[in-house]
């Protein structure tokens, strides 16, 4: 069964919450706008702050099909939009030749009909579905090149695709479009202008703790407070790549696997690889810096409790 889209910012907030996604008010507002006015939502943010997760949760809570287009350099129409089934077309030509029953005009019409069309995510997203319009996730748009970005303009503003041999395909109901970018290059304004924009920041301590409770319920509350305190402190330091929420959750899982009940310097040193992904960063934090941060975090938590 399809679920209706939310009717207010509060409902949007609740919807995400039901899907175990702890959003802040600003994201809920942007998402609500995008849902109710049928415009794509363009989400930017550092790696691991839950951009892709947003689309997944949305598809799941609204009971919609999730169509995911992972972008990469050289992504072209054939793998993003549609492709003809050449083998079958060839066979069809040979068959009609053997039978000698068709003239050129009808053969051409036959060969380029929907029967031979292989639909890729963008075209699939425009198809009517009994579950309601699907969620289309265009992931890491910054990885592809400018020509593809330009191709998206028609789709995102009018929700239609032109196939030269068939004509224009347009969506009866526009899909829910989420576009993510890691900002490894600047996306052109023409595309952003067609979307609502949202920048997902690293969460503050309270929200990160909430996220951790939802995503890793098996972690004890003392441990998760320490984890969040430590990660928040790390984000204040001068690292090449700051840990995202995804890393926090990974780390929490890792610590549970190791039967760790509270953070201690040695465990941190051994598991730092779950949190930091650059050797320079690990070298900087490992050892004395880690234990210094840990002492501070513990002191702060104790002061908080008292």
């Amino acid at each position, binding site marked *: 069964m399809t679920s209706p889209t939310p009717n207010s910012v509060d409902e949007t907030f609740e919807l995400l919450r039901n899907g175990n996604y702890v959003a802040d*008010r600003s994201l809920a507002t*942007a998402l609500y*706008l*995008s849902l109710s*006015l049928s415009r794509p939502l363009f989400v930017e943010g550092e790696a691991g702050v839950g951009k892709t997760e947003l689309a997944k949760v949305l598809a799941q809570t609204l009971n919609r099909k999730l169509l995911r287009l992972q972008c990469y350099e*050289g992504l072209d129409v054939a793998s993003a939009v549609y492709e003809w089934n050449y083998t079958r077309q060839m066979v069809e030509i040979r068959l009609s030749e053997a039978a000698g029953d068709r003239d050129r005009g009808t053969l051409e019409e036959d*060969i380029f009909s929907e029967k031979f069309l292989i639909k890729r995510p963008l075209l699939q997203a425009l198809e009517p579905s009994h579950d309601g319009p699907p969620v289309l996730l265009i992931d890491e748009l910054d990885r592809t090149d400018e020509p593809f970005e330009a191709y998206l303009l028609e789709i995102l503003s009018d929700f239609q695709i032109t196939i030269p041999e068939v004509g224009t395909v347009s969506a009866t109901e526009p899909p829910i479009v989420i576009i993510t970018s890691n900002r490894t290059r600047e996306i052109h304004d023409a595309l952003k202008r067609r979307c609502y*924009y949202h920048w997902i920041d690293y969460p503050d301590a309270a929200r990160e703790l909430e996220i951790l409770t939802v995503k890793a319920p098996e972690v004890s509350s003392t441990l998760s407070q320490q984890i969040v305190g430590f990660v928040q402190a790390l984000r204040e330091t001068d690292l090449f790549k700051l840990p995202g929420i995804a890393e926090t959750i990974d780390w929490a899982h890792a610590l549970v696997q190791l039967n760790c009940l509270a953070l201690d310097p040695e465990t941190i040193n051994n598991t730092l690889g779950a949190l930091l992904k650059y050797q320079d960063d690990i070298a900087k934090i490992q050892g004395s810096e880690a234990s210094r941060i840990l002492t501070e975090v513990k002191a702060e938590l104790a002061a908080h409790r008292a």
Partner: protein
Amino acid sequence: MQENASNGGLTVNIMYFVRTLRAAGLPIGPGRLLEALRAVATVGLASREDFYWALHAVLVNRHDQRELFDQAFHIFWRNPKFLERMMSLILPSFGADEPQENPEELSRRIAEAIAADELDESPNSREDKFEYDAAMTWGTNEVLQKKDFENMSADEVSAARAAIKRMRMPISTVPTRRYRPRDVGSQVDMRATLRAALRNGGDIIPLKCRVKDKRHPPIVVLCDISGSMDRYARMMLHFLHTMTNDRDRVHTFLFGTRLTNVTRYLRYKDIDVSLNKISDIVKDWSGGTRIGTCLHDFNRFWSRRVLGQGALVLLITDGLDRDSGEGLAKEMDRLHRSSRRLIWLNPLLRYDLFEPKSRGIKAMMPYVDEFKPIHNLESLIELAEIVGGNGLHSNSSMTNWRERAA
């Protein structure tokens, strides 16, 4: 229309707000204003926070515009008599130590945008702004000099321009993952083949081919503008301007004691406009150099954004570092590892007896792929060739340099 009539006041206010943002430099067209009205109508006015984020979703589309929007929003919507607040933003706050100068500068943009509407107050605020600039000058120990490009000698300018005009940059290319149709090639283009087959009735199937498309890689230029580099940096700017206007994906950064991204300013077709804008924005002309710090900033804040697609990096500096190479090797290593090719252009190579013995130079040498002079027009022309070539032939000279620096 009816809706507009019923909340006419709000519509007009949103319009003024959009105009304020536009004056502050956010690129917002009339279409976006209509979008903003629709968004506000959808979200409703029940909560100030929702109102904020609704406008934010429509009017902001780059991360760095957030600060500007935030300030404009709070000034504009909290207090319609925003003038007093504006004044407090313009006046320097004595005593309070504010380490970030960026938000301050941005506030000035907002303040100016708002002040532009208040004609009677504008001379006053302009004076204040002037004082503020002066305060910033004393605050730091770098030479915050405004560079006058008029001082370039006429000969120098004309010679440089003539040479740069004559330069045709051969565009080096690298294969991409995209294909283009070609009559002869290694891969069959099925789509074109089928189409061609049907054109002659399906009796003959002419093979159509495709080959990998080629494209030039992005170029990132890091140019030193400290005192010792002064003469060359000015000439380089002409060159960089030509290069920026000649092709896409050229990013330019200037550094002395701090790093400034000037890519946008070099995009003006008129070189004089570009140079004027740059001299306005760059505050550390002809000061000292802190290569390590600047490269650190570049690596941390820009490398992921501009080096993502296999960029060619031109590093233009004499390698004379005020911090005597401290932390430089590490940053060079990272820069080298995240770029396709790192080319160091050093004007000191004009001396025949140049030996790579200074600490900064020693720290940098192991990490560069090519080490070339950049001190006269001839070497500028040569640079065009380096950028154009594939760089595979010059490894022997590089080994030589590395040995001498070791």
